[in-house]
């Protein structure tokens, strides 16, 4: 999670890159499978984050962003300060994520990210195991 010009959680699965680049470079099926999994997980995390976001004005839900890395093996879900500034608003996302002295924290990012992480790990393992098995039999 990063605070600065925006607030987002990032999943950048480096070991996926390693697997894709080194072990299964020639296996188009693995690459398609992993990219599809990243897209699926990103969509789920985006939706879960939106579900948990406070909806007093709906501005934050409407300006929640999902951005993929160029290779589509990583993504970020979160908000950008410039979207708020462009609308003439203070960037107040950190106040509901972390709470203030008078209001409790209501963090939509961390629970959604943890759920997504578990979802991806389980299915990534399945993709890799299937690919290894396929290699072993020479399919």
């Amino acid at each position, binding site marked *: 999670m990063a605070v600065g010009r925006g607030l987002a959680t990032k999943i950048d699965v480096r070991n996926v890159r390693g697997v894709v680049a080194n072990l299964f470079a020639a296996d188009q099926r693995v690459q398609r499978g992993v990219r599809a999994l990243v897209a699926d997980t990103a969509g789920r995390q985006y939706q879960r984050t939106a579900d948990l976001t406070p909806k007093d004005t709906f501005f934050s839900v409407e300006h929640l962003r999902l951005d993929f890395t160029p290779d589509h093996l990583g993504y970020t879900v979160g908000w950008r300060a410039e979207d708020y500034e462009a609308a003439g608003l203070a960037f107040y996302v950190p106040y509901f994520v972390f709470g203030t*002295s*008078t209001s409790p924290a209501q963090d939509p990012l961390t*629970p959604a990210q943890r759920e997504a992480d578990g979802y991806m790990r389980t299915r990534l393992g399945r993709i890799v195991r299937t690919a290894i098995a396929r290699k072993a039999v020479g399919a």
Partner: protein
Amino acid sequence: VTAFSAAWPIDKAVATTLTGDAPLAALLAGEQVYSQGTVAPDAALDYVVLAGSAEGDARPAFQRQAWADGALTIDVYAADKGRALVIYGHLRRLLDGTVLDLSGDGRTLLRGRLSLVATIADPPTGGVHLVARYATWAK
């Protein structure tokens, strides 16, 4: 003087550690270490709030899930960033160097590490809100 409603062992152990520390009391200049939801309406900066572990946390279920790994959130509210960081630095030295005795008889010991999550403005007080996370593991 402290105001605690901690009902769970980790919360209690951390609370005991903080409230028994004379240098921290001096840093807070008469203000308190509070548990979440017990901050006095007339509390003056600087003060510390223990948000509680997953079990003892009064926040909604989705928020508890975010911290369901034996971690506490510790919030520091201070007049300025410099003061917040001085208090955080003291908390880190204190907690990272402490073994928590959950059972009181030396049989259930935990160590932990305090890390800085974010430093943001706190509009209600006009001061600074420093968010730290104290993650624990069995010794």
